């Protein structure tokens, strides 16, 4: 549970205090570090999204504040911090106030499992992937509660749509991950990456792995509530969906968590299919911290595909959404698991 990179700090702390106190201090330090990562990731991804959207739509995107407009999102965040937190009188006050924290807490918990490089991973348990799925499905609760507690018809419809969408697509994400764990033979994230040293899983598993990757990308887009699966927010129909009644930082929590969730899903894709922080063909294995670079490059690549989806495809109707999941993705997924199992059993992996 200790960051490998911080063994020095661990020893330093032990010089000054007892074991228990040092442990707690480390926990606090790691929590603070991850909160920082959370904020920076959110702001960077919002900037990236707006820039990329600009280029897709023949615009330039934010380019005024700071180099390449990098500080634009910081300015926006400052504005959101300074705004008043409004609420409705008839809202269920306690749920209404706590709902945003469900979303960010689960996003943070999921973030703790992500191995940024060989040295940097806060929490590496033997059921890592399983834990990741479980935790990220709790995040729905925050959106659902927000829709319910706001006491607003648009929020309620948005929240209900989340329920339908998440329950449906959780299945596909889960089964795509199961397909890959059949191949990997382990649930521990560090071991999954170790296995890929002689070839990424998308290469080892060839046909079923590619099918699983496509399903994972589709279902992952739905999991992070992004277009074309943004029925939850659906600006043109529902105002702003579940967060209609939220303002200031409460709104910003949802906004940041959405982008961090996208990062988490992209990271899972990178871990399961593209070898996590491993460099292609092991070219930079000897350089320390090269893993961080490769991990970032791969994740940004996957995130770019998500953004590409968003600025290309129009939004689904609710019936199309359910047809896609229950009539297409799920059966294909089930056949795919059997196919993968057969391939592993017969030793046809590359």
């Amino acid at each position, binding site marked *: 549970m200790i960051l490998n990179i911080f063994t020095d700090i661990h020893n330093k702390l032990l010089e000054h205090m007892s074991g228990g106190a040092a442990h707690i201090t480390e926990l606090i330090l790691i929590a603070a570090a991850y909160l920082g990562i959370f904020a920076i990731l959110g702001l960077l991804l919002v900037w990236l999204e707006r820039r990329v959207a600009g*280029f*897709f739509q*023949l615009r*330039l995107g934010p380019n005024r504040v700071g180099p390449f407009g990098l500080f634009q999102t910081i300015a926006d965040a400052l504005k959101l911090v300074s705004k008043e937190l409004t609420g409705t009188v008839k809202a269920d006050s306690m749920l209404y106030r706590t709902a945003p924290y469900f979303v960010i807490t689960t996003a943070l918990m999921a973030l703790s499992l992500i191995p940024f490089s060989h040295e940097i991973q806060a929490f590496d348990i033997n059921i890592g992937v399983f834990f990741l799925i479980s935790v990220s499905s709790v995040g729905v609760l925050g959106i659902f509660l927000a829709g319910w507690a706001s006491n607003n018809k648009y929020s309620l419809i948005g929240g209900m749509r989340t329920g339908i969408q998440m329950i449906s697509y959780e299945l596909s994400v889960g089964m795509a991950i199961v397909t890959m764990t059949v191949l990997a033979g382990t649930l521990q994230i560090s071991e999954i990456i170790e296995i890929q040293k002689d070839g990424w899983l998308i290469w080892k598993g060839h046909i079923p792995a590619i099918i699983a990757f496509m399903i994972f990308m589709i279902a992952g887009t739905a999991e992070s509530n992004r277009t074309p699966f943004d029925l939850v927010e659906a600006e043109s129909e529902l105002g702003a969906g579940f967060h209609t009644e939220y303002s200031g930082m409460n709104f910003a929590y949802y906004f940041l968590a959405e982008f961090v969730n996208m990062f988490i899903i992209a990271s899972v894709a990178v871990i399961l299919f593209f070898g996590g922080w491993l460099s292609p063909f092991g070219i930079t294995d000897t350089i320390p911290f090269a893993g961080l670079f490769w991990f970032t490059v791969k994740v940004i690549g996957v995130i770019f595909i998500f953004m*590409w*989806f968003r*600025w*290309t495809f129009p939004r689904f109707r609710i019936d199309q959404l359910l047809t896609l999941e229950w009539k*297409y993705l799920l059966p294909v997924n089930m056949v795919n698991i059997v196919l993968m199992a057969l391939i592993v059993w017969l030793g046809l992996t590359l």
Partner: protein
Amino acid sequence: MSYFSDIINGTKTLLTGMRITGKYFFVNLFTRKDVITRQYPDNIDTLKMFDRYRGEVIMLHNENNEHKCDACTLCEKACPNGSIEVIGDKKINPETGKNVRFLVKHIYHLEMCTMCGLCIEACPQNAIAWGQNYHNTAYDRSKLTKVLNKPGSKIVPGLKG
């Protein structure tokens, strides 16, 4: 079995869409060739408004400081909200001996104008037209009330009047 062909066709059309938007993205990322954004305060020297832009109503003057308005007040009558006041007067033309109208002041209230263009359509002489000036903000309302005929200008000789 349309089930499998649906999957294949669906994937194919999605990829077609992604190819088109992807082309936009990469062309703009590397060349900025098709970017339609105009970065306003930076390009102020080169910025040119398009032909049909409705900035404000202007009166056309030729190089001899002559306009075509004979103060018929058709534009004033056409204006739905009274943005135009035409002040004319009459005098005897020494050549023909006729008593004719001439323009003293063509007052235009830009602050009230809705840019509907009815005055320009109504003008029989094509004396007024759309100007392409887009710097129309002012700190004082009264600055937006303009006299369209330039000081000392006269009607084009030979025109009616």
